[in-house]
């Protein structure tokens, strides 16, 4: 039955990739959710629009908003399919979510905030403290996520 085990291995590989992808997409959606609820609605550090927003900032916001909703919906369908196939590997999903969320937060913190200057975490004089906390937290999430992904590579 060499053929069957070959197929099994291919299925396991595909399931592994699908668990990781579902996690990454879920992580992106979660970051967007935290941004909207915590930073916009609760803390009021971020606003629907502020005068500091450039045209590029508005476009990047729009793409992020649209894609994060899409990522959330896609992740839920992927997870539903994995459950249907009895292939959910929770640790791998969590690893993907931490890596995806951490990677996006790090990209946001380094490229969008500092390199492009599209927007800031909070509009205060000593934003450096916020930047350090933000990026270190992001890096920790990313590393933990990547380690989890590496360790759950085999089912």
């Amino acid at each position: 039955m060499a053929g069957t085990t070959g197929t099994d291995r291919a299925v396991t590989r595909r399931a592994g990739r699908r668990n990781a992808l579902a996690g990454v997409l879920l992580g992106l959606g979660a970051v967007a959710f935290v941004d909207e609820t915590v930073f916009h609605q609760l803390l009021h550090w971020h606003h629907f629009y502020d005068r500091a927003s450039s045209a590029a900032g508005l476009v990047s916001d729009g793409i992020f908003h649209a894609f994060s909703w899409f990522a959330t919906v896609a992740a839920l369908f992927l997870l539903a399919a994995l459950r249907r196939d009895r292939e959910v590997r929770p640790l791998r999903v969590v690893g993907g979510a931490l890596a995806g969320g951490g990677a996006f937060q790090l990209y946001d913190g380094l490229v969008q905030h500092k390199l492009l200057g599209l927007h800031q975490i909070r509009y205060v004089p000593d934003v450096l403290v916020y930047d350090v906390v933000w990026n270190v937290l992001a890096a920790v999430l990313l590393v933990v996520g990547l380690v989890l992904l590496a360790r759950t590579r085999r089912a």
Partner: protein
Amino acid sequence: MSGHELAGLVGAVVAGVYLAAVLGRPWPAGRTACWLGGVAAAVVGAPLTGHGDLRLHVVGHLLLGMFAPLLLVRAAPVTLALRTLPVVRARRLAGVLRSGPVRLVGHPVVAALLDVGGLWVMFRTGLHAAADPAVHALVAVHMLSAGTLFAAALVSPDPAPHRARLGLRAAVLVAAVAAHDVLAKTLYATPPPGIPAEQARAGAELLYYGGLPVELALMVLLGAEWWARDRRAGLRPARAAGSS
């Protein structure tokens, strides 16, 4: 005849034709409900799109250009027409739907440009506040037809021999939603000519958040299509045939 009366009359006729076609044939009740809901949204929304107040105008856009198209498309009107019409005319309809021009405007990219592009043009040229009722009527017709083309290109349950790949449709949806969001924020930042800042801000937020239910529904319908296809293909093609 006022805009309300005209919209109501057209709506009553359109709803009546669908009901007459459904009568006496097996047809999912959900589709009929979608059709009636879509017609109602369009009848309420159409007169609002001519309103000078941006907030009411936006409510009109949401109803006529987003909610109504999605509901009308999900009612599968083409399938119903193909089953109801005499054979010769049904064939002619199928021929028209397969023709080059229809395929062109039915392509997701073209449909999205017509739909969201039209919205940008309307707000940035001041067309939304034009005084001429004929211009209002044209704007309303464009809103409904472009929205319907867009919804049909993405999630139509009707037969579509040249439907674009799922990945392309998903990418077009994300891009269109992003463009809709960016438009809302630019309306907030730079109000259209003649609109007070307060009103522009309320209208912009309404546009941004009010479209979300339709956008999410489109995403879920694409996801459901992927799910159904994945269930057939499956992670394990070799075993799926035996186990299910």
